[in-house]
């Protein structure tokens, strides 16, 4: 049990999928200008990554391995994720419009998010069991939520700052801020073997 907990902590802090594994940077840069959209995006990513990891683990272990077609993992994973996200979007839009208002509009954005497929492929490469895959997925996506919320908070503060030189305003400054945050997260390295 402690091994799972260690894995959970390490996937949030040590191997943060955004700041040290570089997965999911496109929406990270784009959506983090306002904190409520960033938080909405983060929660949607948590929801989708955990669901997608479950589905891809089942597909891999019950469909690809028995048939010795492991090489099809890229194709099948991305097909499962795309269909899953589209289905969840349709269902959410109909069943719970308020939740869709705050959460659902991020879903098409998440299909092209490297983090979702990245976590699924990592689970497979590390050969994790079902429990480990889900814990890793939850940890990584909470790491994503943490990173994007922090980023949004900082970016809102630096938006109104007049001191930034003209050409650095906006995205270049966001990238440099992300670099500094990534240095801070490197501090967690090594606390967990």
């Amino acid at each position, binding site marked *: 049990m402690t091994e799972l907990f260690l894995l959970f902590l390490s996937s949030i802090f040590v191997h943060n999928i955004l700041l040290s594994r570089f997965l999911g940077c496109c929406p990270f840069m784009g959506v983090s200008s306002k904190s409520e959209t960033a938080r909405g995006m983060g929660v949607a990513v948590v929801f989708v990554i955990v669901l997608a990891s479950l589905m891809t683990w089942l597909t891999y272990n019950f469909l690809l391995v028995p048939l010795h077609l492991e*090489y*099809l993992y890229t*194709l099948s994973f991305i*097909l499962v994720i795309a269909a899953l996200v589209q289905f969840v979007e349709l269902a959410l839009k*109909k069943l719970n419009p308020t939740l869709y208002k705050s959460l659902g509009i991020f879903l098409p954005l998440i299909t092209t998010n490297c983090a979702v497929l990245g976590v699924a492929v990592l689970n497979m490469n590390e050969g994790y069991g079902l429990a480990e895959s889900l814990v890793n997925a939850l940890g990584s996506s909470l790491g994503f939520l943490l990173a994007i919320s922090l980023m949004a908070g900082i970016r809102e503060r630096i938006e109104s700052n007049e001191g930034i030189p003209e050409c650095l305003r906006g995205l270049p400054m966001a990238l440099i801020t992300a670099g500094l945050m990534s240095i801070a997260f490197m501090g967690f*390295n*090594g606390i967990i*073997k």
Partner: protein
Amino acid sequence: MTEKMTPELRTETRKKVLHLGGTLFLVTAVTGLILGFVEWGTRIAIEKAQAEAKAEALRNVMPEAASFAAEPMADAGGEMITEIQHAVDKDGSTVGWCLSVSTKGYGGPVAFVVGIAKDGTIRGINILSHSETPGLGARSTEPEFYGQFADKKAPLKIVKGEAGAEDEIAAISGATITSTAVTNGVNAAAEYWDKNLKGK
């Protein structure tokens, strides 16, 4: 809630299911076919590349061996040991053993091969894969570090700074965790050799 299933709605659904399902079926099936074909075509090349990489790793820890034969794992003694190869020279007499070892480094598992000669001296080690920090732990793949293990007797001790005595290995500055992990792996391999492979 969802519209009730009126007759024309049912036909529309069936038409749509066929249309969407059919297109997706067609596209995925054709892609699956192409991939199956490409995989079959490149399978030989991939196996050759992988075998080549493995043989090359074994050869430079045990240069004088002519061929390698897989050896079954004896008992639970070597939890770090992942694979054992029995190295023989041209006329079939044992030259030594190659043990593949995987230890927990700083950033993740470090996999390497240890070559142990018939008389127990370590012929050398070769790091296969690691995820250590570049510039620090990653320097374990440089000859200055892994070269130290050549022609040494186990068990080895890791020391900071200069390696004085015969059984001492100088750790990489700033990467003691990686250096210790590799040395423990080598000691485990030597210990496994001592327990199970000595007589053979």
